[in-house]
């Protein structure tokens, strides 16, 4: 399978994603510069973590206007799987590809630690190999991951089952103390209504090898690999 990892100025998890996908999972990966106007025919797109444009103005606010984002938007509109990790999630929110916004973490601290996530939906291209209720141990590293959505948006997210991951205790029980950044309803990751765009603050690409302390992140990428062949409409759009 062919992945495009978009590189913005200030991205710093692009090589983590490259390593996980190419070296660990043996896939073909292109690093695509944000000024490119062509994604080079991927089957899936990754917007990596980091600090695009130095987080100036707001996290992801400038990156959303990068030329490559038009192609990402088209790829997503045609049903192609897009995964935004950490800063990539912030970019997807700013671009309006996912609903809601990010605030500073509740306690204003940059938090870098392993957290537990409960899988809330397994009918997405990113969780089809996981089970609902399964708990993943995956690291986070962010200062602005305090997810916010207004009550109307929250009920839409619930109604369409767009909430994919929540911060929980290790046994999967809801626990506000484990909602480390203060996110509304402990939301760690959501997908689009069409389910093919995922944004999450935790870093699954940093949890793909025993050597780094967890392999729980692999299920996200293995789910994408297990996804059915890319629809013809996507192939035409790219």
């Amino acid at each position: 399978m062919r992945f495009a990892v978009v590189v913005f100025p200030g991205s710093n998890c692009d090589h983590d994603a490259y390593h996980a996908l190419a070296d660990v999972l043996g896939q073909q990966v292109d690093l695509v510069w944000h000024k490119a106007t062509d994604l080079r025919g991927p089957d899936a797109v990754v917007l990596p973590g980091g600090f695009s444009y130095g987080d100036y103005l707001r996290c992801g606010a400038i990156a959303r206007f990068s030329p490559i984002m038009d192609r990402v938007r088209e790829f997503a509109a045609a049903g192609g799987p897009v995964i935004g990790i950490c800063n990539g999630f912030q970019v997807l929110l700013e671009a309006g590809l996912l609903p809601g916004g990010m605030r500073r973490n509740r306690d204003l601290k940059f938090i870098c630690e392993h957290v537990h996530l409960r899988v809330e939906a397994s009918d997405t291209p990113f969780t089809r190999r996981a089970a609902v209720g399964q708990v993943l141990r995956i690291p986070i590293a962010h200062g602005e991951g305090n997810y916010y959505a207004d009550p109307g948006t929250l009920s839409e997210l619930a109604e369409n089952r767009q909430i994919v991951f929540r911060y929980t205790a290790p046994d999967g029980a809801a626990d506000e103390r484990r909602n480390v950044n203060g996110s509304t309803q402990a939301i760690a990751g959501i997908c689009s209504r069409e389910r093919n765009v995922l944004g999450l603050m935790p870093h699954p690409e940093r949890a793909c090898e025993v050597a780094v302390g967890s392999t729980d992140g692999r299920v996200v990428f293995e789910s994408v690999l297990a996804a059915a062949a890319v629809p013809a409409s996507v192939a035409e759009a790219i």
Partner: protein
Amino acid sequence: MKARVYVTLKPSILDPQGKTIAGALHSLGYDAVRDVRQGKYFELDIDAPTVDQTRSLAGEVADRLLANPVIESYRVEVGKP
């Protein structure tokens, strides 16, 4: 023509930075400061012939880029302070 844009989190949204600043002020003894909301301030130099056009353009860029309408609101001022 100069335009000034003030961006703040919407009143319904908790402002963790403002809360922390208010807490620091209280620890300094400024109990009279009940609450603090932190925001951003932009000065724009806009090439437009009238006040109305300057205001309209400043509002447009605030809406598109300077503020995130999901979580923030903004206010535009045009002309001398």
